[in-house]
């Protein structure tokens, strides 16, 4: 089909207006992504490519690198706890914030406030809260007769501490859930009330199905976030003690910038991407049974 002069002109104009974004995208996103794929097959210090190694980086990573396995394990451990826990905490918060109360907007603000604090700063705050001797957490535990653990200084507790700490930011997701909760048609609850349904039944058979698309969205975003967990370990523990919080991306960063192995780090990044991609596809494929879109026939 031939386009008229006018159509071509409009298209060009459109592209021209979008060009700041287009140029930025190509230069700063698309090109680095493609380049990192190439570098993942090389020995690259970050400045010079010193050799082409084919799949060497990938093979070494999987077959020989003990720390790679450890860091992958740490990240998966974090992910398998932080994602479900984060979902439950955010949902519960959202349900609470959906209550009809006069001062509810005050609570909503309070719950959201931690999200305004940068991860960098909140990591420092938590370092103090979790201090085994002087920290607030162990002080409270001691009041009820529990001798708290070493939290981040004990390798058996360090990952769990970071998982718990991540719940501090649940307010952001809670707000998204809250918006979804308020979109659930009132009429459904009214009908259920007439039928004498309990609160639990309403939650299980009305609320959760109605907000399930938002839950799916949350799970996928949380998975991405969990695969990339970095800041708390970088600031609070430097990956220690005994590499118990050496997360995948932290080890990747070290290879790239501390050890001068940017090629290896690129390979790690691509493997992580593939892992995240497969996980997301699995979640998307299996979610059909749990997710209900309005207007859909069942």
């Amino acid at each position, binding site marked *: 089909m031939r386009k008229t002069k006018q159509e071509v002109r409009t298209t060009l104009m459109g592209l021209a207006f979008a060009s700041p974004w287009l140029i930025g995208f190509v230069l700063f996103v698309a090109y680095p992504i493609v380049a990192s794929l190439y570098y993942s097959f090389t020995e690259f*210090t970050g*400045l010079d490519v010193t050799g082409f190694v084919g799949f060497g980086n990938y093979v070494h990573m999987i077959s020989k690198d003990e720390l790679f396995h450890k860091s992958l394990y740490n990240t998966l451990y974090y992910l398998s706890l932080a994602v479900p826990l984060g979902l439950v905490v955010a949902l519960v918060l959202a349900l609470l914030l959906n209550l009809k109360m006069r001062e509810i907007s005050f609570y909503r603000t309070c719950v959201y406030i931690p999200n305004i604090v940068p991860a960098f700063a909140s990591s420092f705050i938590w370092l103090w809260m979790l201090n085994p001797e002087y920290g607030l957490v162990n002080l409270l535990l001691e009041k009820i007769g529990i001798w708290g653990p070493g939290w981040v200084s*004990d390798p058996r507790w360090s990952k769990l501490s970071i998982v718990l700490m991540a719940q501090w930011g649940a307010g952001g997701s809670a707000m998204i859930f809250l918006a979804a909760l308020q979109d659930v048609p009132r009429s459904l609850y009214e009908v259920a009330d007439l039928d004498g349904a309990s609160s639990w039944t309403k939650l299980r058979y009305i609320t959760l199905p109605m907000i399930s698309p938002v839950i799916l969205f949350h799970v996928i975003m949380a998975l991405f976030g969990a695969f990339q967990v970095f800041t708390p370990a970088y600031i609070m523990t430097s990956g220690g003690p005994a590499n118990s919080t050496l997360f995948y991306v932290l080890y990747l960063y070290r290879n790239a910038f501390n*050890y001068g192995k940017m090629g290896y780090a690129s390979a790690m990044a691509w493997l992580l991407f593939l892992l995240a991609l497969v996980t997301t596809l699995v979640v998307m494929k299996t979610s059909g049974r749990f997710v209900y879109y309005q207007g859909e026939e069942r």
Partner: protein
Amino acid sequence: MTVRRQAKLVALCLAVFVVVAFAVVATAKEKVTFWTSHSGKVDREALELIASKFTESQDKYEVEVTIVPGSETDVAKLMTAVAAGTGPDVYLVDRFTTAQRAVAGALTDLTPFIERAGWKPQDDFLEFAIEESTWAGKIYSLPFDTDTRGLYYRKADFREAGLDPDAPPATIEELDQVAAKLTKRITDRRFERFGLIPWLGQGWHYTWGWAFGGEFYDLAARRLTCNHPAIVESFAWQQKVADEYSIAAIQGFASAFGSEAQDPFIAGKISMIVDGDWKIAGLQRFGPDVEYGVANIPVKAGVGSTTWAGGWALAVPRGAKNPEGGFEFARFASGPVGQEIYTRDTSHLPTLKVLVDRSDLFADSYHDIFLQMLPFARSRPALPVGALLWDELTSARDYVINGDKAPQKALDDVVERVQAELEKHF
């Protein structure tokens, strides 16, 4: 005004601007950019003073100091800037990483500049320092400051435990006995005071490895020897401490430690610690009443006195806009004028032979002991895998004290991993 007249006016303005700009450039000094990750007030001000002294001392260059993010081994800012062609003319690197950055292609070989100047840096700098700045026979950085490590001990605690405060332990055996006497328990898992927690402060793998008589690298064979029997023994010794008092209990006790007035040595939570000479300043400021002594690090019987020295160095990154200016500034800052200012203002130790006996540069008497250690001080092997080796040794030490790996296995693993990386560079 017509369009033509407007254009003429614009052209005139441009011409004037260009002439003025050229005049300014012609009389201005060439700019030399200097990046450092030293953000502490004392260090930063001393560096700025050195920069301004250099700017005054000649007519050609003007130095601009910029504080950038980074740490000993984290040079992400430098690497990305060099890759983008926006790096500085001089960068202050942790000296033991010189070889690594050189191999990564981030540094300029300074040998041609040195030869052109007809200079022999080996004559001026302490041997261990210039060795750390050298890789494959080429000099990539000029040594700046250094530091040594010693055993700090609290005299009052010694008296209280019935020990002679003027006879600090000299051997590992004595150290064990003294430490046991100084440790005070509250309950089985809670402590009031520890005699010594070996890995605190500067009690690194290198510290104890050398104190037990170990060697980390065989230069002639180009092989890492971190699984040397003496180093294995030093790890086993630390494991014994961890097991005896329970590592969880020690970590709980240690995680309450802070800095400044909460520093465990100042607060009296530990009686002995291996630490660097910089601790003197901290004690002066936050614990002026603490009565303490400093001794050489205790060693295994039959091993000579040992300590290790670290410190920083000035390098000219690759792609520097003004490498000549960068080299001139690096030479000035690492020379007698620069190092004298830095030593006096920051109490860091110098790497210049002429400054080694200048105890007058220090306000206190404790620094003498650290200066006297310089002749037998050692530096970490200058290898392109220095940062990796450090992290691997630290992990190995952590594995051992947490009971995750046996000392021999942990150190064998370090050698296997790092040797493979090292061999890529030969």
